């Protein structure tokens, strides 16, 4: 009898553990991100706006990119917390991650910037997570910490990076030493000596407007800056944490851009770079695809005219699915217990 009970108990425990572990897996599977509807205007470039405190986010796990060379062997950012709001016209994403070091310079040969990116599908078919593939276009929104500083404080020149810097002459330079970039290097002749800038490389442009670059890609190594740059954004580092917002109209008619619709769920993915860990390019941490649901305005109201401060009750995308998982586990445990009792009784009667 004792033996039988032990066996049954074991069976019960195993079943429970199996179900529970499945539950854990389910719980870990990427929860969907809901872009909560809020009446505009939204704080599109204010990562610390109070609104964001009201929005529940999801934690998106990140893993070091190891699919192609060069790879990131040791990651430094395990997850990014993502929130989203929309007002029927604009959509904004809010990313937060832990980073003990604020790396806002890519000026020295051994300094690398912090950065974050959102990947959205442009093609109808869900593209390869690996920055798309041939025929599977993706749209990338790439925020860079050094661009942020350039936008906030002016272009970080060599005189800023090296306090004792002095140079008395440059070809075709205007002004006086120690000179400023770009102000004293505006003529086409002077600009020709900043080859990347003259060649139209957005990385080399000292007159940045947004800290976010709008790109397309068709696979690893193909990221290409777009003609039309229309992503707003801002990043703030505070007490070991980056908080970055990205914003764009839901629909903008640009065939190179992802068009986002309240009536249609789409997917998005995230990447984060930690400059002081020399993370750059393919050396990054990435997420898998995450489902994005965009809430439509309440009560059929006109886009952007919904009630301000709508309750965040429905804005718990992760919570809803977690509840399902808990219920499923409880049900399974109860069923197993019943089955166990039934079997035990059968054994006893025999």
């Amino acid at each position: 009898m004792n033996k039988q009970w032990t066996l049954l108990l074991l069976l019960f425990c195993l079943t429970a553990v199996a179900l529970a572990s499945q539950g854990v897996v389910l719980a870990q599977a990427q929860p969907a991100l809901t872009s909560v509807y809020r009446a505009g205007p939204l704080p599109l470039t204010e990562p610390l706006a109070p609104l964001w405190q009201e929005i529940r986010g999801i934690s998106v796990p990140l893993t070091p990119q190891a699919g192609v060379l060069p790879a990131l062997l040791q990651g430094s950012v395990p997850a990014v917390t993502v929130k989203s709001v929309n007002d029927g016209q604009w959509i904004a994403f809010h990313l937060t991650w832990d980073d003990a070091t604020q790396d806002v310079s890519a000026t020295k040969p051994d300094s690398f910037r912090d950065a974050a990116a959102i990947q959205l599908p442009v093609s109808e078919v869900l593209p390869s997570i690996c920055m798309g593939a041939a025929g599977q276009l993706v749209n990338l929104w790439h925020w860079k910490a050094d661009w942020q500083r350039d936008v906030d404080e002016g272009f970080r020149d060599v005189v800023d990076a090296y306090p004792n810097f002095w140079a008395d002459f440059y070809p075709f330079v205007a002004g006086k030493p120690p000179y400023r970039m770009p102000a004293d290097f505006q003529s086409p002749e002077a600009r020709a000596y900043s080859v990347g800038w003259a060649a139209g490389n957005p990385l080399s442009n000292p007159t940045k407007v947004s800290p976010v670059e709008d790109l397309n890609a068709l696979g690893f190594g193909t990221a290409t800056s777009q003609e039309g740059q229309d992503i707003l954004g801002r990043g703030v580092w505070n007490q070991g944490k980056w908080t970055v917002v990205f914003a764009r109209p839901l629909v903008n008619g640009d065939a190179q851009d992802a068009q986002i619709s309240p009536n249609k769920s789409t997917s998005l993915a995230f990447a984060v770079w930690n400059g002081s860990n020399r993370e750059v390019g393919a050396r990054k941490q990435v997420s898998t695809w995450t489902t994005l649901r965009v809430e439509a305005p309440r009560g059929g109201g006109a886009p952007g005219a919904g009630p301000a401060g709508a309750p965040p009750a429905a804005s718990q995308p992760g919570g809803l699915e977690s509840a399902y998982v808990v219920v499923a586990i409880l049900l399974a445990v109860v069923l197993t217990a019943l089955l166990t009792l039934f079997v035990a009784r059968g054994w006893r009667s025999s």
Partner: protein
Amino acid sequence: MPKVFNWQLNREMDYPYEGARAQRQFGAVFDINKCIACQTCTIGCKNAWTSGRGQEYMWYNNVESKPYGFYPLGWDVKLLEALGPQSWQGNTYAGKTIFEAAPAGSVALGFLPEDEDWAHPNLGEDEIAGKFEVGERIMIPHMAWVFYLQRICNHCSYPACLASCPRKAIYKRPEDGIVLVDQSRCRGYRECMKNCPYKKVLYNAVTRVAEKCIACYPLIEQGRQTYCILTCIGRIRMAGWIHPPDKVEPDSPVDFLVHVRKVALPLYPQFGLEPNVYYIPPLHVPVSFTRQMFGPGVDNAIAAYRKAADDPELLGALLLMGATDRWIARFKVRNGQAIGYDEKGAEIVRVPLKEPVYIRPDWDPARQVFRHNIT
């Protein structure tokens, strides 16, 4: 990983791409024995290509003193140490190349120099390897020595910078084998800087992308030599087409010096890139040092170079170095003269193997003065 044949190692080796040689390959010969480290080449190059904002510490061309000079600091010794033993069996390299020694997650073995490492381009200038005791006489090879190493991009047949760029923003021109960074596609990842063993891809602090020696391709396209060659007052340099051993053109002066007389050798061939700047090793430096730097051909190169006075063809090729601003496609030695020809076979330069000597009387009757210089 595909296999390619590296003739400098006399064996196949791993390389991330299939071997595809350029139709023609830019090559150059630098005669270390003639260099006085005046840095005229360095300044000529800088005036031409790196005088812009953000390029202050970028030197596409530099001349460093060996053994203690480096630009950037420790560029070669750091990698030599990381690579481990680099043994040769005869003319075949038995060690690992930087591609074969690639650590997990990387295309090749390398390191990214730190900011400070670029800040002292002429560190170690003229510092000799040891000291002389009182009363010692200098012998050849010198007991304590120094020599100058002239460095530009090697425009390698198997460039590590090109192999390392995840964006394929670095390319090798099929028409002349010159390796270039596409300035519109580079995103400043610096994988190329990490993996170029010669550290000849440099970071522009203002444009935040990588730049490198372009072998003065606008000049080469016009049949001219590069600025560092044009400005060399010691006439130690010459550029020309270099071919692999099975396609040698013996009347190409660079092919002749590298493949026929074998007096010019690649720099650190063991790294596995098949670099295309070839050096005539210094005679006064112990071969234990120069073998590590230029491979197992050093002894032969020195022996051949020592016999140059009795070898009219070799002497002719050497005398054509720096003798013209034009690109010498072919050369001949006839009647005591070395003659250089362009691609179309037109003569562009003629140099006597032995400089004619004119002796004049010390008294100049026309000007009623004594001449001080009478040769």
